[in-house]
């Protein structure tokens, strides 16, 4: 029997106090995610239960019980406190998916500081923008990534401590650097958690914007309430489950459902810190007897590409429940998973700003392949008519996905950018920036983005950020960045570039610019195609018309060109 039981029954008389009661939380109490995810589980008698099974890229496995993660997060928290870090200081996690990433996240929350996870493949410029905006006080990182921090250190006056979690003593520590070794530290048995309250800030995730630089999405400790309940009802996490969330905690799925939710539910989860390969993933599922698997459409399509035969070579009979997130899950993937795994991947929809799943398919509810599902109980969604900013009165029309902004894990603001936060609302509705339609039975069907943001393999990339970085290349005069369709990643980045005098388009220059962006921003932001052009379409006022380039890439109608400079 699934936790949610009947969706229809759950949406009547729903109240978030269901989760509060299960967690033993009363309004006004102290609520600290770090404590709920570790100490509380131990107090419930599960101290010796396995919390984390970690496998690194060399195949070495490490196991941690709930008592182990309690002690390790205490130890990291005490270390940070010893450096003088305190509540609401921003502490960045800039690491691969090593155990210290998960344990450090909890340690930061325990002392009331704000965890700022950043994707370890970010280049130095992406890192600088985010650390500078957050005025981050400390970074927890690895020796393989510390060089990026060193490169930008002069421009980060607020950064006081760079904590290297795997320093081996072979090379000397540099300015502001300090080593932390969990293995060599005496475990801290008792750490007094900072008494955070419901509205105390907890996590700061950066997300891409259409026009400006990335924005820090600020969450609070009360987010636990909806992260806990959505994981229970949508992911259907059960006491005996072995859970695998394939997301990196550099992104919100990896924290909400890769750390906070599973640990606060006392579930055993596993992590594979290795690059993607079909064989490695199936082997990992089989070896760990994974029963609940939360993954992403790009990965699922990559597995589909690997064929059915390889699936038959592995015993995947442990799989009980599958779900997907990050980008729309195409119906072919749903049908394929049902055929090869005997279970469909259930699509879930949410964003960094929502903090938890807001629209979803549920265990026991009829799956309509290709649909996003229905709003989670307690969450009011609608499709707004963009001309009136009012909900459509009839189903079937494509409009803007909008939500009443009133659930526990919604963002509280964009970090020091209240203007951008206010712009997310129209007529009292939170605008997701996505377009969809609703069918007569209340299922939502994704139609596309309502802005220029590029969703590549489930990660959002700002065209503005890539264009700005391109202009720093000595050969580039002007640039425009749009998405182009991609069978595997849904969309990839494409750049249109004009060159400065003295530079000529060539395959070598193309590759040089690609690598320039990869190192400066990230591999995700690297244009997978660069088209050298003589000029870019512009309005008479000189603004580049991305919309025209986008329409050409997607084979869509170009629309109104009356403001085009050369018309």
């Amino acid at each position: 029997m699934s936790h949610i039981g009947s969706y229809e029954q759950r949406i009547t008389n729903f109240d978030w106090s269901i989760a509060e009661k299960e967690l033993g939380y009363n309004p006004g109490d102290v609520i600290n995610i770090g404590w709920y995810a570790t100490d509380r589980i131990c107090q419930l008698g599960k101290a010796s239960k396995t919390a984390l099974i970690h496998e690194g890229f060399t195949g070495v496995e490490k196991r941690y019980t709930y008592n182990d993660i309690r002690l390790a997060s205490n130890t990291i928290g005490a270390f940070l406190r010893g450096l003088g870090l305190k509540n609401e200081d921003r502490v960045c996690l800039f690491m691969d998916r090593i155990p210290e990433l998960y344990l450090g996240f909890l340690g930061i929350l325990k002392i009331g500081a704000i965890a700022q996870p950043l994707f370890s493949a970010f280049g130095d410029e992406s890192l600088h923008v985010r650390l500078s905006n957050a005025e981050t006080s400390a970074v927890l990182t690895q020796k393989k990534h510390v060089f990026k921090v060193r490169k930008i250190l002069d421009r980060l006056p607020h950064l006081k401590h760079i904590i290297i979690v795997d320093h081996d003593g072979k090379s000397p520590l540099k300015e502001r650097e300090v080593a932390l070794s969990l293995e060599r530290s005496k475990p801290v048995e008792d750490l007094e958690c900072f008494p955070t309250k419901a509205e105390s800030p907890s996590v700061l995730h950066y997300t891409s914007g259409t026009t400006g630089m990335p924005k820090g999405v600020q969450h609070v400790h009360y987010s636990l309430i909806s992260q806990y309940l959505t994981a229970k009802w949508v992911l259907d996490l059960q006491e005996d489950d072995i859970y695998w969330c394939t997301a990196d905690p550099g992104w919100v799925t990896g924290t909400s459902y890769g750390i906070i939710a599973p640990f606060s539910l006392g579930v055993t989860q596993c992590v594979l810190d290795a690059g993607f390969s079909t064989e490695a993933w199936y082997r990992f599922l089989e070896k760990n007897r994974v029963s609940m698997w939360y993954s992403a459409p790009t990965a699922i399509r990559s597995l589909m590409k690997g064929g059915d035969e390889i699936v038959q070579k592995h015993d995947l009979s442990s799989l009980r429940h599958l779900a997907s997130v990050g980008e729309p899950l195409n119906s072919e993937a749903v049908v394929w998973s049902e055929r090869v795994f005997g279970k469909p991947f259930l699509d879930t929809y949410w964003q960094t700003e929502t903090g938890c799943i807001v629209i979803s398919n549920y265990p026991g509810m009829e799956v309509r392949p290709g649909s996003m599902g229905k709003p989670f109980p307690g969450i009011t969604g609608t499709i707004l008519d963009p001309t009136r900013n009012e909900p459509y009165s009839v189903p079937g029309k494509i409009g803007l996905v909008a939500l009443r902004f009133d659930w526990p894990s919604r963002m509280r603001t964009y970090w020091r950018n209240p203007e951008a936060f206010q712009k997310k609302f129209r007529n009292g509705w939170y605008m997701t920036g996505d377009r969809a339609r609703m069918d007569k039975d209340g299922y939502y069907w994704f139609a596309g983005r309502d802005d220029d943001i590029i969703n590549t393999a489930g990660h959002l990339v700002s065209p503005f950020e890539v264009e700005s970085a391109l202009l720093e290349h000595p050969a580039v005069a002007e640039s425009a960045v749009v998405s182009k369709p991609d069978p595997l990643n849904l969309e990839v980045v494409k750049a249109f570039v004009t060159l400065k005098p003295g530079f000529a388009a060539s395959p070598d220059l193309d590759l040089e610019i690609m690598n320039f962006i990869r190192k400066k921003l990230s591999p995700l932001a690297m244009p997978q195609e660069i088209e050298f052009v003589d000029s870019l379409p512009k309005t008479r006022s000189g603004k580049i018309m991305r919309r025209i380039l986008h329409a050409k890439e997607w084979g869509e109608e170009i629309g109104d060109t009356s403001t085009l400079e050369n018309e």
Partner: protein
Amino acid sequence: MEGLKDVILQYVTKEYLEDDSEPLDYETPLISGGIVDSFSMVSLKRFLENKYSIQIPDDKATPEAFDSVTKIAALVEEFVGKKG
């Protein structure tokens, strides 16, 4: 084959590793080892195509085929051979 492997090894070292990283060898896992991710594979593939004037079809450019210098060299040889 050794010459080809050295060219690839040098390029990967220059583009994907930092000065103080552990040195690579022909068999170091590149994709599964987290040195080259699936997005960065695109620029590595582009380098090989430019350098050897070949076209590697997307269905051949799999994470498995790019997982070591030796495997990449074998893939390139397959297509360089086809040119002739």
